[in-house]
C-alpha cells in the first residue's frame, strides 16, 4: 500500500474507532496497535511505544497527538492532519448532538440506566488499554516495577501524576532501567 492509500485506510479506521472509543481513546489503543503494528506494519512496536511515551510528556490533547504521529509516519503532514481530524472530529459531533438530546431528556430514567450500564464496560476497557501499553513498555523487571509503583502511587496518594512521570523519566535517563 502506498502512503496515500495507507493514510486513507488509517483515517477511516481511526474515525471508526474514535466513534466507539467509550471511555476515551485509551480504550481503543489495543485495537489501534493491532491495526498499525501487527496487521499493516506501518509503525514498529518500538515506535508505537515511543509515541505513547512522548505524548505523556507533552501537555495538550495527547491522544490526538499520538494519532497524528502515526499519521505523520504513514503519509507525512497531510497524514498527521487527517489522523488528528479522524480522532476528534466524529466524537465532537457526537458530543454536540448528545448534549442537545441530553438537555431535552434530563430527567429520563433511561439516562441513569445507560450511565450505569456503560460505566463498568468503559472501565474494563481503560484498564485493558493500560495493560496492553504495559506489555509493550515493560521489557524487563525494572520497568514492570515502575509501572506497578506508578499505579500504586496514583491510587494511594494525591501526588500530581506529573511527578510520577518525571520520576520514570529520571530513572530512565540515569540508566537504571
Amino acid at each position, binding site marked *: 500500500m502506498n502512503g496515500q492509500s495507507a493514510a486513507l485506510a488509517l483515517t477511516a479506521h481511526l474515525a471508526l474507532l474514535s466513534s466507539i472509543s467509550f471511555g476515551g481513546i485509551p480504550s481503543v489503543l489495543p485495537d489501534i496497535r493491532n491495526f498499525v503494528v501487527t496487521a499493516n506494519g506501518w509503525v514498529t512496536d518500538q515506535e508505537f511505544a515511543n509515541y*505513547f511515551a512522548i505524548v505523556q510528556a507533552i501537555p495538550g490533547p495527547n491522544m490526538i497527538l499520538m494519532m497524528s504521529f502515526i499519521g505523520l509516519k504513514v503519509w507525512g503532514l497531510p497524514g498527521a492532519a487527517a489522523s488528528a481530524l479522524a480522532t476528534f472530529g466524529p466524537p*465532537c459531533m457526537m458530543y454536540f448532538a448528545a448534549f442537545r438530546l441530553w438537555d431535552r431528556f434530563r430527567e429520563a430514567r433511561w439516562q441513569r440506566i445507560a450511565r450505569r450500564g*456503560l460505566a463498568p*464496560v468503559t472501565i474494563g476497557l481503560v484498564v*485493558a488499554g*493500560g495493560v496492553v*501499553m504495559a506489555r509493550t513498555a515493560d521489557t524487563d523487571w525494572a520497568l514492570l516495577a515502575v509501572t506497578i509503583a506508578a*499505579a500504586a502511587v496514583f491510587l494511594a496518594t494525591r501526588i500530581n501524576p506529573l511527578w510520577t512521570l518525571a520520576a*520514570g523519566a529520571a530513572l530512565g535517563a540515569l540508566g537504571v532501567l
Partner: protein
Amino acid sequence: MQVPATRPEAQPVSLAALFVAFLKVSLCGFGGGLVWARRTVVDRERWLDDEEFADTLSLCQFLPGPNIIGIAVCVGARLRGAAGAIAAAAGFILIPGAIGFGLGALFLQHAYLPILQGVLGGVSAAAAGLLIATGLRLLLPHRTRPAALLCAALAFAGMTLVKLPLLVVLLGVLPISFAAAAIEGARA
C-alpha cells in the same frame, strides 16, 4: 454558605473567552486535564456550578472520544450554542496541538539517542501504570455492584486475554451490562 454564583444572563460569554479558557485547560493539563477543566469552568469563570459540571461530565463519560474535549464542546454549546462549542473545542485543540506536535516531532528525530530511549522507556512504563490506576479508581464507585465488577472484568479479559476486537467486546458485554443496570434500577 456561598451565594449561588452563576453567570449573569444579561452578559453572554464571548467566544474568545471560551477559546482562551479551554486553551489554558489544555496547556495545563498534563494527565490531570479534568482537574483543570473543573477549576476553570466552575471556580474561576463560574460558567457552571458543581452539579451542572458533574452532569456534563457523566454525559461525556458515556460517549466515545476524548472526554475533556467533550466537556469543552458541552460547556461551549450550553453558553453559546454551536459557535460556542466550536470555539471551546478549537481552543482546546489547535494551539496546544500545534505546540505538542512540534515538540514531539523534535523528540522523535532524536529518539535513537540512548538517554532519550531511557527517558521514554521510563515515562512509558509509568504512564501505563497511571492508566491502569485511573481505570481502577473509576471502578471504586461501582465496587458494591457485583454485576458491574463482572462486566468490567469481562471487557478487560475480552481485550487482553482473548484479544477480541473492540466491537465484538462491546456488542458482547454491553447488553449484559445494560440488562444488569435496568434490573438494579427496577429494584431500587
